[in-house]
């Protein structure tokens, strides 16, 4: 097992810069998830760590050694691919043992390792089957087994759950987490699914347009996003962004959303934003769970307003309500018994203690 470090890593294809100088330190045993929309450079970054892509500039280190020019086979890594990349002409056992056989491990040790990995992944019964006789989830397990038997320094996962249906994806997500808890190998995992990122990672790396937007624990990213991109990408339904500006009313700092809606900021927030120029174009970032139905007793910092709902989506444990604030679509989460109906008026409460304020032009969270 080992640390992985990326230093100003750049990848350029002709004129296109896919990865624009990223720095990343992954510690031993850590589970890191690279997440971002397609084309953000996350898979390219993973493939550069694997050695499947040359790097244009910068350094990649595994276990303290620079591996820029080391071929994949000598990097002591194992990779799980999106479409499994199992060898179709080999049985499950042969697939799993292929790497060990190439390195001329003793037969007894190969057998022991394959048996142990198969037991860990619950595929002992499938060991003599060919990949085409397996379901998607079983193939995924075999692909993981092939990685585990090698006992590598680093595991690399390239969107391993994308080809599975939603239910199986949840199940395999838990399996992957369990496996990591047992083997504790340093893991780099690429996905475009923010739920996978949040549930699996020790730390999440959010990438956008070839750059790292933010690195942090799932909670940090959720509660303290650094940019509008991260705030909008993490969380489902996504955070609402409502144009606003700050104004002084009777010596108190208020936030004005529309001509008729203006709320006093809670003291902590007011102190934080007091130095901002009042003329600046700002965005209020508020997550749907902080826009709920109004109650008789409101906490300090929770403000109410009346609106007319456009659409409601009953989800069972909650109801999502959609409405407009001067043309900006906004989503809230209310109790299923709160009486939200399509086209009906409703009084909602906004928890400003959990608000974010963003610079509209730069997208930076203030």
């Amino acid at each position, binding site marked *: 097992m080992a640390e992985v470090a990326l230093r100003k890593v750049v990848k350029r294809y002709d004129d296109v810069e896919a990865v624009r100088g990223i720095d990343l330190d992954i510690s031993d045993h850590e589970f890191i998830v690279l997440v971002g929309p397609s084309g953000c450079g996350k898979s390219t970054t993973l493939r550069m760590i694997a050695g499947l892509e040359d790097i244009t500039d910068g350094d990649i280190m595994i276990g303290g050694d620079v591996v820029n020019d080391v071929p*994949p086979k000598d990097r002591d890594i194992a*990779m799980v691919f999106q479409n499994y*990349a199992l060898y179709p002409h080999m049985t499950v056992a042969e697939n799993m043992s292929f790497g060990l056989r*190439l390195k001329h491990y003793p037969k007894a040790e190969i057998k022991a390792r394959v048996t142990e990995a198969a037991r860990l992944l619950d595929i002992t019964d499938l060991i003599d089957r*060919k990949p085409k006789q397996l379901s998607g989830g079983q193939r995924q397990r075999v692909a993981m087994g092939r990685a585990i038997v090698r006992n590598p320094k680093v595991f690399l996962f390239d969107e391993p759950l994308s080809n599975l249906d939603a239910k199986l994806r949840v199940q395999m997500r838990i399996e992957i987490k369990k496996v990591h808890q047992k083997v504790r190998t340093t893991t780099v995992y690429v996905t475009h699914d923010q739920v996978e990122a949040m549930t699996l990672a020790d730390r999440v790396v959010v990438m956008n347009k070839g750059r790292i937007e933010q690195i942090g624990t799932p909670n940090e990213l959720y509660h303290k996003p650094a940019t509008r991109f991260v705030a909008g990408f993490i969380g489902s339904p996504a955070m609402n962004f409502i144009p606003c500006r700050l104004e002084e009313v009777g010596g108190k700092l208020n936030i004005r959303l529309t001509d008729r809606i203006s709320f006093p900021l809670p003291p902590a927030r007011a102190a934080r934003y007091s130095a901002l120029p009042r003329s600046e174009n700002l965005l209020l970032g508020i997550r749907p769970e902080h826009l709920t139905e109004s109650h008789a007793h409101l906490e300090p910092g929770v403000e109410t307003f009346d609106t007319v709902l456009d659409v409601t989506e009953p989800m069972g444990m909650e109801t999502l309500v959609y409405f407009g604030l001067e043309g900006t679509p906004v989503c809230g989460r209310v109790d299923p018994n709160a009486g939200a109906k399509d086209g009906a008026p409703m009084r909602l409460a906004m928890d400003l203690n959990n608000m974010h304020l963003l610079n509209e032009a730069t997208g930076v969270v203030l």
Partner: protein
Amino acid sequence: MADVVVEQGRPARAASPRKRASLRNAMGRKSTVAFFLTLPLILLIALLVLYPAFYSVYLATLNKAMTKFVGLTNFTFLFKRETFWMVVRQSCIFAITAVVFKALIGFIVAHFVHNIPGKKQRKWRGMLLVPWVIPPAMSTLAWLWLFDPSYSAFNYTLSFFGIGPIPWLGDTFWARFSVILVNVWYGAPFFLIMYLAALKSVPDQLYEAAAIDGANWWQKIWHITLPMMRNIIAITTLFSLIVTFANFDIVRILTSGGPLDRTHLFATWAFQVGIQSSDIPLGACVSLFMVPILAVAAVFILRDVNKRGNEA
């Protein structure tokens, strides 16, 4: 209910709607439709392949004048002739050597072409297919001139190195070498194009997975490329073996089977015995020997194709 009443009322005609229904069922079955769609081809094969095949079996049982049924006499006569066994040996050597070289060259060149990027690849593919698209009777004439012992480009070039002149078509070894060389030149592009198509169907990720598993280029070829191409290799080899075994034009134009029958194949010898020596039953008998030999080869080569199927 109404149907039953009608049927009871007219018991004599009760079977007819059932028959019509079963005919409709039969027509509706996929296999029946498939049979009718392939019927024109089946008829064509019957007319152009089966009829001549059975006719040659019939011919092989006649005497030289084709007036009397002689049973297996022609076959026993052939078994006693040394030339026949020499032709069997030569045909096997010719077909196996040529197919092995065609497959090897096709495989190697397919790899090179596969690694040429984009547009350039199309150009190379086109150029490398040229030997295969020129009618072999024409291209073999060009080879005949190249092999000329006195004035050929080959011997002229070799003379600069103090080699030769080599009697390309006059010496047993060189004559056999020459006919095989021309056959390889003509047939390798077929292997190239088949292997290239097979190579393109191997997913890149398998090679990437193998690279990470620690495979070098040779291990990738041995453990990934070859097993993934197994079916194509088997079918291409069989197809080529049949065509090469039955080759006629190249040998006929280059050597006519000489020197001293040392380059005769089944087809050219059958032609010589049957047409040129006017012993059609014996010629038919010679050509029939190709069938069991190729059948055995087909069984061995295609043994696993069905079983393996598409493993992906």
